[in-house]
């Protein structure tokens, strides 16, 4: 348990009669890059919301680096070191790209250092030329990058990425994959993604969720051969 970055034990949440996440036991090791896949409604984004405290579980526990963070406030969990890029980019539309990165960097760094980090991340995500433009005017693909950069600027220990490649062109997807691999050299990551090409570019271990529960956990190659996984994705008996 001590060498796991994140562990969930029987994590569940129920909305009325629907159990969106059912008894998920999940362990993420130090510097692991895990891909989380599954059809729409499988509970992937809900799991992310539980991990970041945006939703409170109805049962189960979340342990982050040995600390029980179950039911903690979102900002307290973020302070412990979990950063998230949400499914629909969650940004400050009236603020500039630079301001986003600065706000994230400044929380944990003195002013001077925060400025340096901001410039460094601007270069890294290739948005230096748009740094002073309001984020509200950017395309979906660029907004994804701004949010990714914002998360990076905060330098959390664990990074959750919810569909980081959505709305991107083929080249942008490749760049994102490269960036994810680069981040993974120093950070643990969980990536939710539908784009299988993208998953294949980055994945080692893949967790498949289906109807709120973990269906299978294996290497990418094994997952692709798995008949059940193919069935739920192609909807043979997963549509019910």
């Amino acid at each position, binding site marked *: 348990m001590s060498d796991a970055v994140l562990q969930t034990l029987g994590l569940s949440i129920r909305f009325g009669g629907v159990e969106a996440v059912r008894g998920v036991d999940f362990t993420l090791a130090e510097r692991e890059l895990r891909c989380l896949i599954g059809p729409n409604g499988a509970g992937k984004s809900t799991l992310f919301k539980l991990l970041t405290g945006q939703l409170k579980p109805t049962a189960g526990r979340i342990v982050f680096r040995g600390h029980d963070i179950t039911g903690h406030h979102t900002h307290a969990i973020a302070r412990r070191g979990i950063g998230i890029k949400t499914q629909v980019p969650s940004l*400050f539309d009236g603020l500039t790209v630079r301001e986003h990165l600065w706000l994230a960097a400044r929380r944990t760094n003195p002013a001077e250092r925060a400025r340096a980090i901001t410039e460094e991340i601007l270069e890294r995500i290739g948005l230096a030329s748009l740094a002073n433009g309001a984020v509200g005017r950017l395309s979906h693909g660029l907004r994804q990058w701004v949010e990714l950069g914002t998360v990076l600027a905060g330098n959390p220990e664990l990074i959750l990425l919810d569909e980081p490649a959505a709305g991107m062109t083929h080249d942008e997807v490749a760049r994102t994959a490269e960036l994810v691999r680069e981040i993974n050299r120093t950070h643990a990551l969980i990536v939710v993604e539908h784009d299988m090409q993208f998953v294949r570019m980055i994945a080692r271990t893949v967790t498949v969720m289906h109807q709120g529960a973990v269906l299978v956990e294996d290497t990418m190659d094994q997952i692709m051969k798995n008949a059940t996984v193919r069935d739920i994705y192609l909807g043979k008996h997963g549509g019910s």
Partner: protein
Amino acid sequence: MVVIALGVPQVVDQFGLLQLTIFAAMCILALSLGFVWGYGGILCFGQSAFFGLGAYAYAVTAVDLGESTAAAILAVLVPAVFAALLGYFMFYGRLSDVYLGVITLSVTLIFFNLMNSTAGDAYRVGKARLNGFNGMPSLPTLNVPGDPARLLDPTETFYLVMAFLVIVYVGLHVLLASHFGRVVVAIRENEARCELLGYDVRLHKLLVFTIGGGIAGLAGCLFANWGAFVSPNVFSLTMTSQIIIWVIVGGLGTLVGPIIGCLIMQYLATTLGTQQLANTNLIFGIIFLAFVLLVPRGIVPSLRALGARAPGPSRVHDPA
């Protein structure tokens, strides 16, 4: 602003000076809501509650002590503490914006009714009789700190009020440029993202609300001092809606806006009031509707948009 402050008493007569003094005091009140609502994104329908509390805190303490310095300090502290308590329940209770509006408005009207029903000898704080709807007349005005006999004359009062206006204006600019201020603006833009970055949204909103309450209290103190009088009307619906109109007309998300909105509307109110041409409230209502429908962003942001990319000190904070 400083130049105007220094030059005005040389060219304006006593009556004009008194007018400008109260205008400036009201500008401070406008700034308080401009900060809380325009930057903090907290729609407070009850900014007059803090204004009135400040006015009454000053009145009661000044009458009791016969000295104004402690009274002026309390006029800022009492509303600030009250705002902190009220804000704690609202923000830590996770109330949504609509309820915030309802609660702040209700609190104001509760004060209005409460103070209205304090007529009679039984309602007194020390020597200070609250006098219900008749209000408290002949209040001691501001004196030089430590010397109750040395009262400020109208010109000195004008300088003082202008100095406070400049201090509040500059102070808010500095605050907004700080780390805290930038987080406040970010919270207005997207609360959820701020929390995901690790900022405690509740605490930031509480601080904004408290600072706004204190500033409104300062305005209340200057108001009570100006007329040497305070009545429950400081808590009235007219008062509280006026502040909102100032900010709407001048423009949300700027600090100059509320000041300009306040000056225009106060000037109109004075002019309409003396000429008896039309009902002031009716005209205010029409102007309010016209602005909401036609110039929803208010004067200053609209002019800035027209002036295209005119660099302003708070450009980064403004919603584009």
